[in-house]
């Protein structure tokens, strides 16, 4: 089996979720999702539609750039979508741009996200986070949310977010459905494991653990009780030699994903 690093298994896992013809957006400071998109487009999903930074359509950066919300990310784009009059008119419409890859400072057992404040008082926070930005919309607009987290720990994966700045499955069950919010969080890819949401309760569920990690470690690193799949918990499929080569030599030669994942 090939040598690979944690950012590489995260990229390969995210990439495998993209089907040819899917339409995906990336957000700020998102090296791993951008590398995953570039990897999918170079392998099994050449027709994956990528709206880079929600602005540049099907660009061809020669590598993962120093910023995922700045030129040269948009190099060779076939269209620039103006955010106010173009992007949000397409994105609010369920027919387009179905997948949004995003990170969150806090994510809870029902996939609700918090990028607003740490602490109990919104107006006098212990920590002021950057803000909800597009996630506050995407969570309510029926998008398939692909969460990623390079630091799986009980402070980032919590039983209940301090503040709900994006809607996941709310308090679980059919609450989201009753509000008519459509599809929601679909997967969480972390540095330790892959998780999804159990269809009935909408509680976070372990899908697979990365080779080298154990179910116990993942549970310990999680701030709430994880649901488990029936039978044994499988291992996450590791990246192939070719995927690793593409990531290291062509897609991310500068190792920005490794820096993001804290790989020495």
């Amino acid at each position, binding site marked *: 089996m090939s040598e690979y690093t944690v950012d590489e298994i995260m990229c390969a896992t995210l990439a495998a979720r993209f089907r040819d013809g899917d339409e995906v957006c990336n957000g*700020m*400071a998102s090296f791993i999702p951008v590398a995953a998109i570039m990897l999918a487009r170079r392998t099994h999903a050449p027709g994956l539609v990528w709206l880079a*930074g929600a*602005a*540049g359509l099907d660009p061809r950066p020669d590598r993962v750039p*120093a*910023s*995922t*919300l*700045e*030129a*040269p990310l*948009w190099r060779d784009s076939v269209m*620039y979508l*103006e*955010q*106010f*009059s173009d992007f*949000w008119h397409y994105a*609010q419409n369920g027919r387009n741009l179905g997948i949004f890859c995003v990170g969150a400072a806090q994510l809870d057992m029902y996939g609700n996200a918090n*990028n*607003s404040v740490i602490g109990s008082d*919104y*107006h*006098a*926070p*212990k*920590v*002021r*986070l*950057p*803000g*909800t*930005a*597009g*996630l*506050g*919309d995407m*969570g*309510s*607009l029926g998008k398939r949310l692909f969460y990623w987290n390079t630091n799986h720990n009980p402070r980032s994966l919590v039983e209940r977010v301090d*503040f*709900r*700045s*994006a*809607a996941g499955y*709310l308090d679980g069950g059919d609450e*989201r459905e009753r*509000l*008519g*919010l459509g599809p929601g969080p679909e997967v969480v890819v972390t540095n330790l494991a892959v998780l999804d949401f159990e269809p009935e309760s909408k509680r976070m569920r372990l899908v697979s653990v990365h080779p080298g990690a154990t179910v116990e470690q993942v549970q310990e690193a999680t701030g709430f009780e994880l649901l488990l799949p029936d039978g044994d918990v499988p291992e996450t499929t590791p990246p192939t030699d070719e995927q690793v080569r593409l990531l290291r030599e062509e897609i991310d030669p500068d190792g920005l994903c490794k820096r993001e994942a804290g790989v020495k």
Partner: protein
Amino acid sequence: MSKVKTLEEAVGLVSDGDVVALQNMATQAAPMALVRELIRQEKRDLGLVCLVGGMAVDWLAAAGAIDRFIGAAVSMETFGLCQQYRKAVEEGRVRVEELSETALNARLAAGARNLPSLPTRGLLGTDLIDVNENLKTFEDPFTGETLVACRALVPDVALVHAHRADEHGNVQIEPTIVWPDLGIFPKAARKTIVTVEEIVDSEVLRRNPDRTVLPGFRVDAVVEVPYGAHPTSLHPRYGYDARFHLAWTKVSRDDDATKEFLDAYVRAPATQADYLAAVGGSERLIEITRT
């Protein structure tokens, strides 16, 4: 009648307490020369409207110029959180009205169109509605579905930076990504102040009327400020200044070092030329114009 003004005259149009819509997208296209002039003129109690605020928000918070922020996020992206802004919020000196992008766009579009409010489905199910008096749920007149009404926002002044303008205030950009800053801010604001890389004859604009993004009738002041967005980027003309951003992140956790930094780069330079010399002169400009 010419709308060409000096930085000092232009920023003189901004009053203490004004709501200022500031072009900015993390490390992109902020009218930084206007931001520095706001600090030099010691404006106070400003409300700041940004989609995604960056170093400009951090500077204005550090200088005590703002007491509220209205927007979707504040971040310097790969350069991390804005520490001075964060501190000001955590200490209660700056109040935050946090909006999703569709909610911010709806508030500004309502302001532009002279409507009391516009709706969105964004934010439904979040806690951001309850903490914001400018958002409320209501039932659609036709279907009865629950939506979020976003109250009209009319900034007192919009500040933007672009590639070129004529003396009448017609503003043009080179082909690049366009954020709501240019798409909606000036349409909603009572006044608009524009800095540009160069002021040109109207004949130059008439060659590419499709690239003119602001009509002169909506613009109150135009100032020529080469590299007026530095240290943020103005594509395709120049990129953001990574070294300057890193330098700021090094000092911005310490109030004394922050003050020294602002004295050196904001308060001391009397002109744009002095500022550009202070940040590294032609060598640095060559560095950020490399692609």
